């Protein structure tokens, strides 16, 4: 008999009709999702920059590129990054846009100063970015460069992981990653060090999109 059958048979003999408890629903309510997100990510040594619009968000990116002195930047080909011509806007940097720029992505990521990505969602409670793999969306862009900048729309904020799993449906992409801060370790004498393997800096540029969140809408209704 194969190990598979042996293991499964042994377990089947011990099976009992025990049912899972009812699903645990989110018990979080944050008056201000952006404030909680900022607080949590900052506590984990991440950085958050607020922008009133996508246009202001590009200005923040501009400031970060100059601050870092970026020479090589790699970007995922996804919203909102694919809305503008990155290389035309920042001609002083060498750009690699995933699935667009020819050349070896891995080699470019390994020497890039900054990785630029969007997010699928963000969790306020834990200050987490939800990042998927997929067409135009590389795993290495958010991992190899020492600085990761993520553009996060305020409308993408969810209260917590329970809301995220409740909203989740269908097949998973090959890689989903919840990023809740810059890479860190305390393995040497319990002293915190950033940037062990992944990015040393994680900067979320949190921008308003003009879409109003349900809770915010409700708030405005009650104050009327």
């Amino acid at each position: 008999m194969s190990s598979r059958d042996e293991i499964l048979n042994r377990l089947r003999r011990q099976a009992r009709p025990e049912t899972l408890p009812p699903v645990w629903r989110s018990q979080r309510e944050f008056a201000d999702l952006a404030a909680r997100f900022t607080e949590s990510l900052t506590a984990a040594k991440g950085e958050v920059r607020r922008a009133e619009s996508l246009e202001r968000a590009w200005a923040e990116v501009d400031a970060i590129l100059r601050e870092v002195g970026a020479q090589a930047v790699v970007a995922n080909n996804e919203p909102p990054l694919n809305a503008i011509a990155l290389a035309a806007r920042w001609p002083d940097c060498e750009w690699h846009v995933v699935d667009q720029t020819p050349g070896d992505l891995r080699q470019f990521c390994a020497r890039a100063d900054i990785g630029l990505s969007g997010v699928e969602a963000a969790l306020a409670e834990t200050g987490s970015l939800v990042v998927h793999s997929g067409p135009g969306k590389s795993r290495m862009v958010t991992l190899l460069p020492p600085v990761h900048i993520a553009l996060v729309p305020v409308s993408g904020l969810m209260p917590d992981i329970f809301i995220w799993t409740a909203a989740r449906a269908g097949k998973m992409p090959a890689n989903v990653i919840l990023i809740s801060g810059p890479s860190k370790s305390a393995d040497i004498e319990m002293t915190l060090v950033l940037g062990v393997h992944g990015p040393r800096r994680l900067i979320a540029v949190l921008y308003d999109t003009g879409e109003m969140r349900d809770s915010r809408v409700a708030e405005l209704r009650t104050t009327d």
Partner: protein
Amino acid sequence: MTTTFAQFRQRANVAIKDIRLQKALDTATDNFIRARNRALAELPNADSLRDHFKAIRSATLGQLAHHLETFERNAVSAGAQVHWAGDGTEACEIVVEIARRHGVKLATKGKSMATEEIHLNEALAEAGVEAVETDLGDFLVQLAGETPSHIIAPAIHKTREQVAALLSREAGRPLSADDLSALTAEARRILRERFLTAGMGISGGNIAVAETGSVVLVTNEGNGRFVTSVPPVHVAIIGIEKVAPTWDEAAVWLSLLARSTAGQPLSIYTSILTGPARADDPDGPEEVHVVLLDNGRSQLVGTKYEEVLQCIRCGACLNVCPVYREAGGHAYGSPYCGPIGAVLTPLLFGLEDYEALPHASSLCGACKDVCPARIDLPRMLLELRTDEVTEGVLPWRERKTEEGAAFVLRHQKLMRFVSAAVRLAQRPFVRDDVLNLPGPLNPTPGRQLPGLAKHSFREMWKAGELEDKG
């Protein structure tokens, strides 16, 4: 490896005499506990959430075959290859075979207790595959030729000077111990090169989510992301008990895991891995294997020890354990140390070989109090002690002594006679109420035992000495 009473005592003594290690253990465990308590206090209804999680873990184990088959079906449909390993040898053979098929010479490894358990690195080395640990702590421990001493902080026992020496040797130039950032940067450089050249990435898995056939892996450093994303082949080894039926259960699991471990709301990176890279993904592994490891686990389902399979390896019980905090991880002689290790090790590797571990506890119950799945470790430690007596595992001297004591305690007259005799016999050895027996007669070397009181409880009661004096 074995852990007899003498071995445990000897290894613990080494740790207890190491003042620097004692300080490191105190600092690390205190920090972890404080952070854990703060994080759970911040969570709404954390205690109900833990009750809920226990119910989830119990119900999942009750239908484990069903959930494992669901996991397998969904993982395969996402393109992963699922293997079943009855024991450690079979698991190692599976991984070695995958490495051989791809001509792998260098493999990078993420933190994994399961691979420690099955001695995968040794098996790979024999097959000519170099397996490099990439968790910073594990990497340092590997460079030193040692084993991890804490589930979460494997190099807790190393000083920065020792770390600097190890990394200097590896880098081929002297590095200063003063600058931790520079030391870490050097480790980053060394391991980055390995990541980019390895033919295979090996990881453990924190959760196998049946609903989508996904393996969830949490790390803080990002090494887990590297080993699962950069090499062309990824192999995950995961115990069969680590299944969550759906994402609803996985969310509860994740809500408790990092909080219990180090007080983080979530680990820095929670990777959810579902099959190999899709055709239109720009990167990711071309081949993904999941090895489901039994190695004694399925034998525990349905027994009085099933509860131990609810463990999610957060390490919280180590940090609160008064024995672990003094004796350190190496005393246990197993990759699983602390209270969970004291229960799990004898169950997986044999009570005969690890006779001392069920006794490496004061039964204070602190481990049960902090456990995210509320596992009743003290109960199982007692069950194991009972098994040692019924299975004749205890050394005869200990067994005879305890049998004798039980006989005396059952017979009142004999008890009175014996205690009177002992009070008489102890006289030359008692000074300031402390019993000082000469070397070989001393049952508790290194600890002071008080002498028997001058009068027995019965005598004092009769003489009215026990009246309330308040």
